[in-house]
């Protein structure tokens, strides 16, 4: 199974990934990529499942890690959040989602946002439709600098975040239980 790998040293901060994500998941008219480079605020308010955060000590992506035993799946009261076991993708079924945000309440990464129009939970769906066609996620395809790529295993950043997630989940009473399948 392939995961999204991030190499921040290659990232130029162009935010084409964000734009591509938004374009993939919405029919709304979007600003051109060049505009985003010049004016990052141009895509504020546009729905997207990946967000570049540059205002921390080091730049990083705010995105879903598609956790094993994901807290958001446990917390969702009506089965709207689930795991696609084949693709290893945690995704929300917008037709079932009630916008209660129990998922966001337990996601330590802030990976879930609110759809500006529907008010429902919005998150990275791993570009499931594209994956089924054997295509890379839109963000990966858009990344000219190759900072984003699909690969096997875990990259160091992801492993660190996952370890951290485990620590946080346990502190929140969401234990990563022994005997779970791991990927």
């Amino acid at each position: 199974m392939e995961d999204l790998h991030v190499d921040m040293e290659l990232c130029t901060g162009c935010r084409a990934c964000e734009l591509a994500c938004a374009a993939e998941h919405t029919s709304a008219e979007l600003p051109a990529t060049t505009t985003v480079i010049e004016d990052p605020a141009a895509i504020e308010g546009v729905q997207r499942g990946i967000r570049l955060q540059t205002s921390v000590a080091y730049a990083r992506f705010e995105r879903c890690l598609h956790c094993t035993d994901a807290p958001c799946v446990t917390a969702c009261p009506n089965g709207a959040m689930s795991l696609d076991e084949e693709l290893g993708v945690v995704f929300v079924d917008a037709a079932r989602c009630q916008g209660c945000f129990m998922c966001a309440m337990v996601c330590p990464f802030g990976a879930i946002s609110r759809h500006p129009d529907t008010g429902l939970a919005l998150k990275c769906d791993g570009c499931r439709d594209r994956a089924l066609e054997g295509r890379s996620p839109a963000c990966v395809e858009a990344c000219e600098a190759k900072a984003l790529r699909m690969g096997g295993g875990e990259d160091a950043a992801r492993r660190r975040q996952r370890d951290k997630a485990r620590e946080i989940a346990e502190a929140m009473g969401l234990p990563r239980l022994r005997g779970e399948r791991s990927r």
Partner: protein
Amino acid sequence: MRIVIAGNGPAAVSAIESIRQYDDETEIVVVSPECDRAYTPCFLGRYVTGRIELDDLYFRPEDFYDKQRVEVVRDAVLSVAPAEHTVFLESGDSLSYDRLLLACGAGTVEPEVPGLKGPGVVGFRDLADAEKIRGLVVAGNRALVLGSGFVAMEAVEALAEVGMDVSVVVRTERILRRLFDAEVADAVETDVAGHGVTFLKNSDLARVERDADGGLVAALMADGSRVECDLIVTAIGMRPNVSIVSGTDVEVGNGILTDHHMRTNVPDVWAAGDLAEPEIAGVRRVNLIHPNAILTGRVAGASMVGVHRPMSSHFRDMNVLTLFGKSYLSIGSIDSPQSLSRIDDDGGLVKVFLDSNVVTGIQMMGDVTRGGIYAALIGRRLPEGVTERLMSPEFNFGDIETWPFED
């Protein structure tokens, strides 16, 4: 081996999935008087208003029980005879078990008020209640809601949305006392009042006036005032359904006491979900929230087939309430005098409670999507100089990765 599960809610469903993860052979029998198919009680208000359908409440596919090879018996477990490994059902039948899971949830606390019991008065706990209320709501009619907690507010929203004239009986000065501090509770009250809802503060229902046919006429309050009403919804609290083990040796506190494997003190009997009171690391707690039902069900299911996946800690106190499209979030302890907060122009709020610079609780209003990031702060000591960053709308997980836990 035969496992009998009393109840068919989220804890039962979670236990079934957990059992089947490890064991294909065991016979599973679910006994529920309520439903053949598990539903979530979380969105009953939206079902009352017709915003969503019954299908939206079912959180597993229709073929779930077939695929998991579970027999569903539509009956109620009235009592348990642990020595005989038998449960006795309302129909007069009995069922033998090798292992038993008690997962029949919590019920509405019925206020003891003269005249209250009768037509026009409904609880707000299960689908049957919601169906009754659907049959009783009439736009323009007057509804009285008893209670001002989470469930009561969901009832208030639903009744107001269908156009009823809603009044809320609040025993104290403040609504949502267990969830929010005065600042947020007052804000919720103002927001809800903006939808035409009246709050009757420091009031208590003394008696219910009925006509000769038993029809609901008015509520008489302790202060002597009289409120005419066509419907009363009671939502003053919830109590674990522990009567199922009365007359047995199963230990009961506020709920059915278990260890961190969700085992009761009686061999071959487990409990999970709203009715269970597990003791974890020396702390006993009943926690009536969906994720806790899923987690405890999972642990119990595994334990029943010999797989030890104990709870390592209690699911933290947290909940998020959405009323009229606006969300309000509460995490942890919100009674510390020290706090930091940010109030946005659009009515949004982030408030972080601290005790000697260690984060104890969080409250949010409006955009709550960063709630989990803030939840991850609880128990951590704030490093020097982070206050501004903590209150920034862009505050994120990257900021706190390196912040240490206090213990």
